């Protein structure tokens, strides 16, 4: 089976936020509004963490895009009492909203804070309704949601490949973030397939994973930012 993963080159990332916005549009992630945002209830499937090093004027800025890391040894699935979140055969950590009871154990267990909770019913403005993606369900209030590596695209890609009687290729399945990145900082593919670009990049001497010592085995690799 495939092992879908991502390599993010921090040298190339400019922190433009294209991945964040394309993710919101693709996955119908609601904007929570001012009050909820001030209470720390923002919903982000993809977030850009910005680090500042040094003192003004010699500041070095590093932008770190953070999706769900789809860990191989996910701590979130082990604490879920209702099997709403699980590691599937494609190596994706699924989240089934209809099954979720909103206990938020998984949010507490995730060391990367990759999950968000629907504190209120998603309220989309009237003009926004027409732009919602019909391939992705709208979540109800009281459930946890997270980046799915756009797995609805995988379902469609598999369907097309099966119909055309061929194997799934690298370009068939790309999540919204990697597709929209203007600097090609995000590369996506099958980590087990030597023909995919990610397999070369993940073995680079710049490659590292966040909080590797926890043993979560994330499937998102970063390429260290180097000063030129």
């Amino acid at each position: 089976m495939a092992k879908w993963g991502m390599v993010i080159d921090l040298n190339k990332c400019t922190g433009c936020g294209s991945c964040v916005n394309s993710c919101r549009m693709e996955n119908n992630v609601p904007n929570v509004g001012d009050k909820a945002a001030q209470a720390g209830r923002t919903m982000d499937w993809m977030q850009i963490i910005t680090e500042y090093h040094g003192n003004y004027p010699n500041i070095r800025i590093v932008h770190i895009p953070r999706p769900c890391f789809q860990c191989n040894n996910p701590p979130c699935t082990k604490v879920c009492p209702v099997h709403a979140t699980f590691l599937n055969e494609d190596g994706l950590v699924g989240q089934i909203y209809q099954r979720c009871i909103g206990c938020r154990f998984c949010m507490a267990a995730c060391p990367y804070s990759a999950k968000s909770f629907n504190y209120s019913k998603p309220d989309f403005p009237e003009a926004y309704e027409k732009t919602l993606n019909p391939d992705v369900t709208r979540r109800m209030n009281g459930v946890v949601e997270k980046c799915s590596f756009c797995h609805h695209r995988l379902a469609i890609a598999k369907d097309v490949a099966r119909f055309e009687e061929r194997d799934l290729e690298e370009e068939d399945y790309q999540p919204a973030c990697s597709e929209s990145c203007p600097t090609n900082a995000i590369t996506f593919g099958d980590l087990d397939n030597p023909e995919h670009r990610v397999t070369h990049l993940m073995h680079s001497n710049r490659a590292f994973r966040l909080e590797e010592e926890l043993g979560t085995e994330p499937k998102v690799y970063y390429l260290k930012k180097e000063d030129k």
Partner: protein
Amino acid sequence: MKILRFTFLSKKQIIFVFLYLLISGCSKQKKIEQPVAYNHAIHVSEAGLDCIDCHTGVEKKMYASLPSIKRCKSCHSIMQGESAAEALVVEAVNNNVEIPWKPIYELEDYVFFSHRRHVKSGKISCAVCHGEVEKLVKPPSKQLVPISMKGCLKCHDNKSISNDCLTCHV
């Protein structure tokens, strides 16, 4: 009955309301009336049509479709019989107006279902999920075979297809 004191309804009325709610709650789907009293049986047995002939896209696309007026036009530009239902179709064909057919099978938005995968790749006949529609003289007002996740899982189990949640849920 202390509760009754605060309501405007009598005992009989409350029982009636309770029974109505019970019955309406039992039948999951509302009855759907089609704009034209379409006769499936006559089209299949006498005209020799297959499901795919009118519900095009079932084999080639993810979504099935309801027949467009162009499909009706190939036979019904003039009256073939004498029924009132056909007269409506002929009128629609001549005016080039689409007949507003109402879908009976609509899946929830959290389910990913591809028709071509089931029909073309899985080689499942239409009757497995939709029942024997070809024998109906009147248009079906509700699902002949109610769609449930239990049914999906059972079939997936029998054919040893993945029952992973992400296979169908998006």
